[in-house]
């Protein structure tokens, strides 16, 4: 099972972008294709961030510890879709007009927040290699907790962007809330469960 699972998952993760390409070739992106692409890539970025954050709770609760081996790939796909999302803005919305983009980032808080979310993903993607993990040691885990901030910034970016209907962004917020709550609870339980644990020697939680 394990041998084929990874390549299958890899291909599955490419389905959203393949769908966009297919719809594009068949005139299926609707009346405003660029808006469609922007929304779709934004949605998938958030979904991949949340799925990445789901790996740890899922493997703990189901005791399927091998699930950890997919977390990096899922996280990198979050980055991949985040990059596509950013590129639709940079290229298709602003046409590489740096001045206009800087103005946007400074003035419009939902853009500021979106840029923050992406920027926070950047060091995580760059340090996702085996070499970097080895090199950074304990600090790697601390660094990769940034994914919590990135996901939160991504959800806030969405909340601040919508005109009136907060349903979808709040659904993402609710899922993110549950995933973060799991960590708080797990941390509290681990702390109570092992009274000998001294401060600093954190309980062995695989985070993020």
């Amino acid at each position, binding site marked *: 099972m394990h041998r084929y699972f990874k390549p299958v998952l890899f291909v599955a993760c490419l389905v959203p972008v393949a769908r966009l390409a297919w719809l594009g070739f068949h005139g299926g992106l*609707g*009346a*405003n294709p660029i808006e469609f692409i922007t929304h779709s890539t934004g949605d998938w970025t958030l979904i991949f961030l949340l799925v990445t954050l789901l790996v740890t709770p899922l493997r703990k609760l189901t005791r399927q510890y091998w699930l950890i081996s997919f977390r990096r790939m899922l996280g990198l796909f979050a980055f991949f879709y985040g990059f596509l999302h950013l590129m639709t803005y940079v290229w*298709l919305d602003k046409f590489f007009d740096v001045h206009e983009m800087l103005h*946007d980032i400074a003035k*419009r*808080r939902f853009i500021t927040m979106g840029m923050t979310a992406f920027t926070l993903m950047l060091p995580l993607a760059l340090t996702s290699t085996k070499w970097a993990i080895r090199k950074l040691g304990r600090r790697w885990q601390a660094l990769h907790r940034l994914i919590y901030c990135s996901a939160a910034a991504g959800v806030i970016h969405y909340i601040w962007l919508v005109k*009136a209907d907060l*349903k979808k962004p709040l659904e993402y917020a609710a899922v993110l809330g549950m995933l973060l709550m799991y960590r708080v609870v797990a941390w509290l339980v681990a702390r109570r469960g092992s009274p000998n644990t001294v401060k600093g020697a954190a309980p062995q939680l695989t985070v993020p």
Partner: protein
Amino acid sequence: MAGAGAAIGLGLKRTISPSTTALAANKIDGIKKSSFSTSETITPAKDVTHYNNYYEFSTEKTEPAELAKNFRTRPWKVKIDGLVEKKQELDIDSILKMAPPEERIYRHRCVEGWSIVVPWIGFSLSELIKRANPTSKAKYVEFTTLFDLNQMPGQRRQVLDWPYVEGLRMDEAMNPLALLCFGMYGEDLPNQDGAPLRIVLPWKYGFKSAKAIVRIRFVEKEPMNSWKLSAPNEYGFYANVNPNVDHPRWSQAKERRLGEFLKRPTLMFNGYGDQVASLYSGMDLKKNY
């Protein structure tokens, strides 16, 4: 990435032809041409009927087409009240006979930064207002959209404070550009575009152009409008298209005409300054956004 890029190019290269009978609705006879019409390329009917900001049905633009399919536009009455000589309830069919139908090909600019060119059918709103006989005290007109939870599923959620209301100053409403609209592309107005009766105000952002109107009320004070009520720092009463006044969350300097790849600059009053600029002389349009 390269594949996606190519796809985007192709996605935009769909054949664009001025569509005349794409709605499969009732054809309107005796349509006159109008000197207010633009000669710009008309947006395909399919886009104008499948990309609708019509929150009474859904906040997803693609959904009103399907959700409004069985919307009942007959019988339909429009209540005329407030500061008028005689309050009355007009039947939609008697309204449609007030003046000969004209085709007005207008640019339509959404506050969200996209635009379309639509061959609307109707006649000047002033035709109805004259017959409504407002008193000299009437300084504003308020338009109310139908509230019907059974027919308009979007109203079950308090996304906006229902029913939808919009308003105009009397001189704006009497301006010949202000259109009382009941058709487009040579046919009856599709349900998802505001049937059976809406207004079209081409120099203002789209949200000012109320759909499915059931009440027209004449008042002395500036009426509240739904989007202003929802977010007063983002949407004002006037909502004139203005490239120099940004929406707090996005620039209004440019717009994307549906079907085009590059953005085009947004024009002051959406290019209708010759007809309407005088209405606002002496007003600070940054304050009165």
